[in-house]
Every structure is written in structure tokens, then in C-alpha cells.
């Protein structure tokens, strides 16, 4: 899938979060890495249709993303987003978290939605927890429910915003395994992560974002194994030290 951004600019107040971000990649799984505050999450949120850029252009599969409310709503309904803080609906059970958008947004009948939810929950080993509310689930289980919700409506693209940053190492493993599986099954993914080792495994293209710009963009493992820029080399050395 071809993903392009041209001169994306975004400021919050006087802070410039994206200062002319451009890239054009052909990737089934794009990893975005870089130091905190470098603009990764904002870029992902623009790709998800959750944020308006101040200027610039985004193309997904050769199709230009129109930045108006109606078009972005359509766009959001075609992509699945997974957040760092899970963002499940706390008043609803795991199952209802999945069936509600299926019924309300995607027009499935209650029965169809129920079947679909049972199917994804079973696949992600969550069948036993279907009737529980988020507060009754572990962090790893919550994130897996969030992923189940995101894939349940068969989106054309899955977006992950640091999906394991709020999890302990064991739960991180269980969530990364799941993302790896989705990848093997052919899901198209854009992944913002601090898990460099995992990004190296799954990504077929990687962007290094720092100080509001794309510093380096390279296919496959090249960016991780042979970084060209000094900044990227320094960053990788820092995060891989321990």
C-alpha cells in the first residue's frame, strides 16, 4: 500500500510538532520510530483522520485525504486505530465494545455483530472475558480487546500508537505477538513504537522522526541495521543500550 505525505505542518500553540513532514513509501507495514516529542503520534493521528494538519497533503493508496469533517468521518470508518491507553469504553463489556461500533457505524444487525465479536474474541483468546468490563481485565487483555475492536470491522489499514507503552514486559509480549500475527495474515499496518526490536522484525519500511521532521526513511531493516544519519545512529544506540 502506498502512503504519502507532503509538507505536513502542524503546530500546537507556539510548538511546531510537524515542520514539513514528507515521505512516500510502498509498505505493508510501516514503522515510525524516534525520540519522544518528535512528532510520531501527531503524524499517526493525522493519518487516522483524528487531527487536521495546518497545511500539507496525505495520500493513502493514491487517494488524497480530504481534510473536512465528512470525509474524515468516512476515512476513520475505514481504518482501525489502537491507542497507547487502550481507550476502551469503560461502561461497556469487552463484547459490547466491539458490537456497538459494528451496529451503529457499520450497520450490522445485532446478531451479525454478536457473531463477529465472538469470532474475533475467540481468535485473540479472549472468549472467556467477553462479558467483562475493561476494569476487570489486565492491561494486556484490554489492549487485545482494543485491537479486536479495531480489526472487527475489517479496516483497510490498522494504526497503532505506541500500543505497548503502558504495559509490563510480559503483557507487551502478548500484544506484540498478536500484532505480529495480524501482520503475517496480511493486515496493513502503520506502527508507532519504542519497541525497536519488534519494529525491525515486522516492518518493511521505517521512518525515523525527530524534531518535527523525517530524518531518515529506509526500506526493510536498513534503518535499524545501517542508519545513515547521525541522529538516528545516536537514537538507536541510546535505546538499545540496555
Amino acid at each position, binding site marked *: 500500500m502506498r502512503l504519502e505525505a507532503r509538507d505536513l505542518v502542524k503546530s500546537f500553540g507556539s510548538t511546531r510538532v510537524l515542520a514539513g513532514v514528507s515521505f512516500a513509501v510502498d509498505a505493508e507495514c510501516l514503522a515510525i520510530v524516534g525520540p519522544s516529542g518528535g512528532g510520531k503520534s501527531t503524524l499517526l493521528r493525522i493519518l487516522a483522520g483524528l487531527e487536521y494538519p495546518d497545511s500539507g497533503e496525505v495520500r493513502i493508496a493514491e487517494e488524497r485525504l480530504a481534510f473536512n469533517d465528512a470525509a474524515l*468521518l468516512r476515512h*476513520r470508518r475505514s481504518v482501525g486505530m489502537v491507542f497507547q491507553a487502550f481507550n476502551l*469504553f469503560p461502561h461497556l463489556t469487552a463484547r459490547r465494545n466491539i458490537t456497538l461500533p459494528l451496529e451503529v457505524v457499520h450497520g450490522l444487525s445485532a446478531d451479525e455483530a454478536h457473531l463477529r465479536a465472538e469470532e474475533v474474541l475467540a481468535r485473540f483468546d479472549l472468549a472467556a472475558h467477553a462479558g467483562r468490563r475493561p476494569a*476487570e481485565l489486565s492491561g494486556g487483555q484490554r489492549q487485545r480487546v482494543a485491537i479486536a475492536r479495531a480489526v472487527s470491522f475489517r479496516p483497510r489499514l490498522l494504526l497503532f500508537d505506541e500500543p505497548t507503552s503502558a504495559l509490563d514486559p510480559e503483557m507487551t509480549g502478548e500484544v506484540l505477538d498478536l500484532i505480529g500475527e495480524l501482520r503475517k495474515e496480511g493486515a496493513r499496518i502503520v506502527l508507532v513504537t519504542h519497541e525497536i526490536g519488534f519494529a525491525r522484525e515486522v516492518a518493511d519500511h521505517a521512518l525515523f522522526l525527530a524534531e518535527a521532521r523525517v530524518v531518515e526513511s529506509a526500506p526493510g531493516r536498513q534503518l535499524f541495521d545501517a542508519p545513515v544519519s547521525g541522529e538516528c545512529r545516536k537514537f538507536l544506540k541510546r535505546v538499545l543500550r540496555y
Partner: protein
Amino acid sequence: MTIVTEPRGLRAWWFAPRRGPVPGRVFAFQIVLAVLLVTGLLVAVFTGLAHYRWNWEPVWGYREKFARGWLMTVGLASASLVLSTGIGFLAAVSQRARLLPVRALGTVYVELVRSTPLLVQSLVLYFGVFPVLGLSSPFLSGVLILSLFAGAYIGEVMRAGIEGVGTSQREAAAAVGFTTAQMYRHVILPQALRHIVPPLAGQFASLIKDSSILSVIAIREFTLSVTEVRSLTYSAFEAYLPLALGYFLMTFPISLWARRLEQRFRYET
């Protein structure tokens, strides 16, 4: 060695556990005691009115008037509860509207209502505004006056509840593709409700009691009926005690209902 000792035996009827809930029958027992205490105090005060000669007979003769007034207030309050909730919701969402004139109107309405007395509002609306609009039904006037008044307070309660639902929830709702209306219906309101219900019940009780103000604009509701009975019979407490009891019978069920609702919306976050 046990360090924290929970109250046992007789003490358990008088002290709350350091941790965990108070057993239901223990608290019920204490409620009964408190009610007895308050009743006892009231009885003592009234029997202390040595010069007061109790005479229930003339008042009893007007029991139908009591009932009609009470039912009128129940009708006014019920209609106003519904209408003020609607107005309150509009006041709450209007203050979040992107269209600024709507937002400004919402703010002006809330501030205007909250900074003037209900009595003054009643007089101005009933004798000034409504005649100009050709509205002459006292019942409808009463409902409108109460609803416009309570709507401002209910609106602020709702706004606080709505704003208490975090941005991450709005973001999640947007991400799964909800429209704004769907987000309110399925995500914001269900979560706001459990924070709104306790103060909302208080507002509802206030609304019912505030309806007594309408007695000044010739709506024969409960308070006016009872005032009339009082002047017809030259009695005082024989009229006012049933008046207090009559309002209690309207507001207390709302408190009970609110507590049950609170239980229903309870979930951990």
C-alpha cells in the same frame, strides 16, 4: 498479631468498620434511631407550645382542597421535570457548540437565570412577558417559569458531567467512526449519567419545592391551597404540617429513585 481491630459485638451496631461497607441492617437501625430522635424533638417543641390549641377538625373539612392543590403541584412538577431536563440538556450542549452565537446564547441564558431570584422571574414572566406572547394558561405559565428556572441549573449539572468524560473517550468514539450525535448517545451520556444523577436528583427536589413560589401568581397549587385553608380556618400548624408532609411525599421518592439509579450506573473505571 492483629493490629486493625474491627468493631465487634455491640460496638458493631455503633461504629463503622475501618474498611469496607457498613452492614445494611446496622445502618437501617441507625436511620430508625435518627428518625425517632428528630420526631421526638419535633414533638417536644410542639407540645412546648403550651398556649397553642390543636384543632384538626376545620382543616380536615378542607381535605379535598388539600388533595387538589397537591395534585396540581404534582402535575406542575412532573411536566417541569421533563421540560427542564430538555432545556437543561440544550443549555449544556449549546455551551459546547462550535457555532458561537449558540454558545453565547446558552451562556447568557444560564447566567441570567442564575443571577435573578425565582420570585422576580415569576412576576416578570407572568405579568410582563407571557401576556405579550398571548399565553394565558396559568398551568402552562407555571410549567414554563419553573422549567426555565430549573433548566439553567440542570444545564450546569449536565455540562459538568459531560465535561467530566475525558478526551480519550471522545477520541476513542471518533476513532471507531461515531458521529457527534452517536458519541453523545453511546459514549458521553452513559458515562456522564452516573456523575449527573446525584446532583440532578437534588435539582429535581429543589424544582418541586420551588413550585411553591407559583402561589404568588394565582396558580392554585399546593402552597396556595393550604394558605387559603389556613386563612379560612384560622389554623396554622394544622395546615402547615400536612403541607410539609405533602412536599416530602413528592421529593422523597426522587431521592430513592436516584439512589437506585446510582447503583445501576455503578461500574469501575
